[in-house]
C-alpha cells in the first residue's frame, strides 16, 4: 500500500457508507482523494476541517469524509458555509459543488462569496452537465453539445468558471482536471492555504450522461480526452485564439492577498466596542 492510499484511509468514514453512490469510472472520487491528500499534506486536524456541499452527484462527497460535514441544499452550500465560517473562523471550511450547483442555482452566492473574500475554499467539480438529474445542460455545457434538455444541441455559451471567480474577487483561482490528479492536489493545497476566498475548478466528466448523449465513449475515453485536450497556461499563451477554442487551460489564474472577511469583521467588533459608528441612524425605508 502506498503512502497516499494509507493516508486516505485515515480520512474516510468506514462505519457505513461504502460502496459510494457514484458510477464506476466517475471522476468525482478523484477529486475527493485529491482533497484528502491536500488536507493531509497541510497536516490539518480532522476536527478543524468542515466540508460543506450542495446537491448533485458531487454534493454527495462529504458523507464519505471523516470531517465535520454538511450536505446542504442545491446551490446554497456557499451561503451555509459563509455562516459557519463567520461563526467559527478557526475552522477550515471547504465547499464542494457541481457546476450546476455552483453556477446556475448558486451563481449569485458564488460571486458574492468571492466578492466578500471570505476564507472559504470552493471546489467546483465541473463535468459540464447535470449528472444527478440525468444529463440536462448546465452553465458550463459547451456550445453545440447535446443534453437531455438540449436535444438539438446547446445554444447557451458556457461560463468561464475561473475568470468569473477572479473577476468577482476571489484571491486564489486555479483549474486542473481529474486526469492531472497530482496537479489537482497541489492546487487544492494552495487554495486551502490561502486566507481568502479560493476556487479550484476540477474539470471532470460524466460518461453516464454527457458521454453517452454526445457519443464520447466510456470513462477511459473521456479521461483520455482530458489529457489530450488540455494545456498549461504557459503553453496556451503560445496558441492562436482558434487553436485555443475548446481547449482546457490548466494553471493558477489568480493569487493575490486582500483582507479576509472574518478578519475585517474582527476590526468591526473592535470599533464597535470602542464606541465608534454608533451614531448611524436607522431609517427603515419603504421597499
Amino acid at each position: 500500500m502506498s503512502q497516499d492510499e494509507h493516508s486516505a484511509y485515515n480520512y474516510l468514514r468506514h462505519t457505513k457508507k461504502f460502496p459510494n453512490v457514484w458510477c464506476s469510472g466517475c471522476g468525482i472520487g478523484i477529486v475527493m482523494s485529491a482533497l484528502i491528500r491536500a488536507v493531509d499534506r497541510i497536516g490539518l486536524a480532522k476536527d478543524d476541517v468542515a466540508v460543506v456541499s450542495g446537491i448533485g452527484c458531487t454534493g454527495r462527497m462529504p458523507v464519505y469524509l471523516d470531517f465535520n460535514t454538511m450536505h446542504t441544499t442545491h446551490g446554497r452550500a456557499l451561503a451555509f458555509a459563509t455562516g459557519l465560517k463567520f461563526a467559527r473562523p478557526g475552522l477550515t471550511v471547504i465547499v464542494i459543488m457541481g457546476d450546476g450547483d455552483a453556477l446556475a442555482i448558486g451563481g449569485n452566492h458564488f460571486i458574492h462569496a468571492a466578492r466578500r473574500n471570505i476564507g472559504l475554499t470552493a471546489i467546483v467539480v465541473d463535468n459540464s452537465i447535470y449528472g444527478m438529474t440525468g444529463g440536462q445542460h448546465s452553465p458550463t455545457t459547451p456550445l453545440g453539445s447535446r443534453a437531455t434538455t438540449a436535444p438539438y444541441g446547446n445554444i447557451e455559451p458556457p461560463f468561464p468558471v475561473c475568470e468569473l471567480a477572479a473577476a468577482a474577487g476571489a484571491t486564489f483561482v486555479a483549474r486542473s482536471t481529474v486526469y492531472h490528479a497530482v496537479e489537482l492536489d497541489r492546487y487544492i493545497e494552495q487554495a486551502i492555504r490561502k486566507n481568502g476566498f479560493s476556487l479550484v475548478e476540477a474539470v471532470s466528466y460524466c460518461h453516464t450522461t454527457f458521454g453517452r448523449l454526445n457519443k464520447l465513449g466510456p470513462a477511459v475515453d473521456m479521461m483520455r480526452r482530458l489529457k489530450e485536450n488540455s494545456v498549461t497556461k504557459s503553453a496556451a499563451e503560445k496558441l492562436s485564439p482558434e487553436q485555443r477554442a475548446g481547449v482546457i487551460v490548466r494553471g493558477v489564474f489568480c493569487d493575490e492577498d486582500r483582507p479576509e472577511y472574518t478578519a475585517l469583521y474582527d476590526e468591526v467588533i473592535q470599533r464597535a466596542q470602542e464606541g465608534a459608528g454608533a451614531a448611524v441612524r436607522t431609517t427603515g425605508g419603504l421597499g
Partner: protein
Amino acid sequence: MTARLMQGNEAVGWGALAAGCRFYAGYPITPSTEIAEMLSRELPKLGGKFIQMEDEIASLAACIGASVGGLKALTATSGPGFSLMQEHIGYAAMVEVPCVIVDVQRLGPSTGQPTSPSQGDVMQARWGAHGDHPIIALSPTSVRQAFDLTVQAFNFSEQYRTPVILLLDEVIAHMREKVELPAPDAVRVVDREITRVPSEWYLPYGDALSDVPPMASFGMGYRYHVTGLFHDPAGYPTQRLDEIGPWIERVFRKIERNLADIVLVEEDGTDAANTIVVAYGATARSAQHAVKLARGQRAKVGLVTLLTIWPFAEEVIERVAHMARRIVVPEMNLGQLALEVERIAGRRKVVRVNRANGEMVTPMMILEAIEGK
C-alpha cells in the same frame, strides 16, 4: 431598566440579544429592516456577528451554518423574503438546527403593499415549506410582547432543536410603545443541550428521553454528518423504512409531547361566556377593546389571545367552544386561522371578521360580530 419609547422591531432586536443571539444574517426588506439595522450596530458590541447576505435564501442558510457552528442565529424578513426562505425552513426542521425567523407580515402576495399591515402569512408559516414537518410560530400583540416572544422563540428553538417563526404584524413592528424591558438577569434563557458523551459514541440524531438529541457544534471534536436527506441516528442518509418512520415520529413527538409548554394562550373571561373572540397579533388589541365595549352592554364575552399560532391551540379552543354559542375570529386576512377554529369548533357558529386591504380590523367590526349584527 427604565421605561423607554420603543418600536416593535427594536424590541425584537433587544429580545434576541437578551436570549443570547450572537449571529444575524439578513437581506433588507420593509417592514423588517430596523431589526437588521439595530443588530448591525449592537451585535459587534457583544462580540456577535452581523452579515448582510445577497438574498433571503442565503440569509437563512448562513443562520443555519452559524447555528451548526454553535451560535444562536436570527434572520428577519417580510413576505417576499419569507417566501424565499421556505426551502431552508424545511432544511432546518429536517436537520433539527435551532434558528429563529422573524416574518414582519406585509399586505398581499408579491410586492403587495410593503408598509401596510396584514396577517396573511399565517398558513404559509405552517405549510410554506414542502413535506410534513413540525413548526413553531409565535405572534406578539404588543411591543413588550415582541421582546418576550422573541426570547421565547429562541428558547423553544434551542430546547426543541427546531426553527421557530415569529409572525409580527407591521403595526406592532413600527408602532412605538412605552416599554420597560426586564433586567438581563431576569430573562429566562434556554441553551441547547450539548452532548457530554465521548465523540466516538455521539449520535447527532440518536434516541433521547426528551426526543431532542443533544447537539455538538462543528469544531468541538465531534465529527458528524448533517444532511437534508432522511438520515439515520448517526446522521447518514438512509432509505430504510425502519429509520425514516421513527425519525418522522420523533420530530413530531418532540413538539406534541410538549404542547403544554409550547402553546401560549391568554384567556380572559372564557369560563362564563357564551360568545368567544379568538384573536392574535395586532388584531387582538382591537378585540380587547371590542370585548370591553360588549361587556359594558352586559354581553357575556370571553377573549382568547393566541400567542402561539403553531402548533394550533386545539385543546383550548375545544374547551371554550364547548361552552360557547358563537366564536368570533377577527383576522387581517381573508380567513386563515378561522379555518383551524372551524375545524375544532364542530357545529358551533364561527363568525369570521376579515379585512385584507391594509387597514386594521376595528373594534366596531368585532363588536358587531359579537352582537350578531
